């Protein structure tokens, strides 16, 4: 009955799907796997210690936090919105696209500029709706819903595909650690380099799609008013 060793994977899949406490799932899965595979408690605790210490690099984000909060305190968010505000003749789609590019660049440098709660809601959505109102239209409710969805979408797309460009980002460190467990030694710089085309294509797909979609929505909701 070799299959019983898969109990840990079953626990991980069910646990995350049922939204149980993530750390509880991980500890339970590790303990159950050790139990059915004849690994004793002392060895398990030692593996925990040894492996966590070997993967301490994944806590590097804590060091970066020394400046993230203080940069926010010193006006990083205001500076980002001033940068987007410099674009002339903007539409909602262009504002979203500009944010996507800036978010991507900062993501590659492992710097957050506020996310949905800190930037999109208080800064980006008003900027996007402002471009419609400045042309003398009233913002259509359905268009607003789509602007919100696209803004949250570009936030995710730019962040996901560009954060992997940061040398020493959490994802690359986990890949490096996973490969080390399997006996492969890979440098972080290679892990970042291989993602360059993915980041460029990802951001391009996101901003072109949202720009086209917004253009179509603008024609649909505002062209008749004139």
């Amino acid at each position, binding site marked *: 009955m070799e299959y019983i060793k*898969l109990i840990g994977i079953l626990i991980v899949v069910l646990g995350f799907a049922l939204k149980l406490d993530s750390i509880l799932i991980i500890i339970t899965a590790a303990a159950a796997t050790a139990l059915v595979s004849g690994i004793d408690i002392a060895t398990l605790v030692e593996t925990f210690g040894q492996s966590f210490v070997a993967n*301490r690099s994944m806590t590097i984000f804590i060091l970066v936090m020394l*400046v993230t909060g203080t940069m926010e305190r010193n006006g*990083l968010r205001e500076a980002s919105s001033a940068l987007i505000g410099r674009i002339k003749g903007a539409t909602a789609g262009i504002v979203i696209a500009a944010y996507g590019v800036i978010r991507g660049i900062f993501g590659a440098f492992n710097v957050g500029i506020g996310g949905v709660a800190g930037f999109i809601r208080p800064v980006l959505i008003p900027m996007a709706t402002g471009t419609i109102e400045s042309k003398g239209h009233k913002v259509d409710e359905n268009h607003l819903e789509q602007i919100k969805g*696209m803004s*949250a979408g570009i936030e995710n797309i730019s962040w996901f595909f560009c954060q992997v460009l940061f040398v020493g980002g959490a994802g690359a460190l986990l890949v490096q650690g996973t490969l080390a467990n399997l006996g492969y030694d890979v440098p972080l710089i290679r892990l970042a380099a291989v993602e360059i085309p993915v980041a460029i294509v990802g951001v391009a797909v996101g901003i072109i799609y949202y720009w086209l979609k917004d253009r179509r929505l603008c024609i649909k909701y505002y062209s008749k008013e004139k």
Partner: protein
Amino acid sequence: MEFFTSPDIPLMTKLLEVVYIIIGLICLYTAGRNLFDKENKSPWGTAAFWGSVGIVIAFGRWLPDIVSGALILLMSASAILRLVKPGQDLAPTAEQTKAKFDRIGMKIFIPALSIGIFSLVFAFLGGNALVGTGFGVLVAMVLLFAFSTDNKPKVFFDDAARFLSIVGPTSMLPPLLAVLGSVFTLAGVGDVIAGIVGRFIPQGNVNIGIVVYALGMMLFTMIMGNAFAAITVMTVGIGAPFVLAYGADPAAIVMLALTCGYCGTLLTPMAANFNIVPVAILDMKDKMGVIKNQILPAVIMIVFQIIYMILIK
């Protein structure tokens, strides 16, 4: 002390250990601040969490594995029992940040970019990228102090503790998942999965292996809502035996598998932080409104990445 004075140990190794000690101290500072924070509803549990992880990060190199392991279990226990709480939030007000922006302006982008630049430079020059990150953080701190003398060391530590308290135990998922991965490897879980999957997909066809690995990453991430959890399981079970075993480039294949997983993250309500919480923050009517806007980009990106993986393997 011998470690730092010994001429046999490379400078980068020593500096990396200094970086870990600083990270550990930030955790210990967070523990101390929460312990004495009267607004924290669970000062002891919070301090136990950040304190134990801080000790392991700072001194793990010298601690016996069983002691580190026990501390990690203590950390996990305080998180599982929901005893870790953020204390008082000393976030700056909009007036404060506006006033700073009026004084500092666009120069704030320089420290913001310095961290990534130094990581890159160190990595290119053959140094350690993480030491580069540390160096970049140091440069950013000096610049911020030069811009405004309000930015004293205590401000940096307080802001770091504030952010760490906000992200909370979730931030420890990546190293804990790596720990789980090593337990799986120790138990031989990968061999069992490989045995099962091997009955369905032909041995020796790397391209089919890549397609199964990439789509598997996407689907597993959709079910679990977490690409980090999926990559440990999928790599041990499918990536290693069906792709890497045939000589494909491990760095390219596994890293790209992670971003294939991110395509899954874009498509699932399980990734609530990214796809459901924004619906609430932005007052949207359609609960799936964010995901619907991400379907087309996610599909294009998974196809693109599979082709890219096959081309550069």
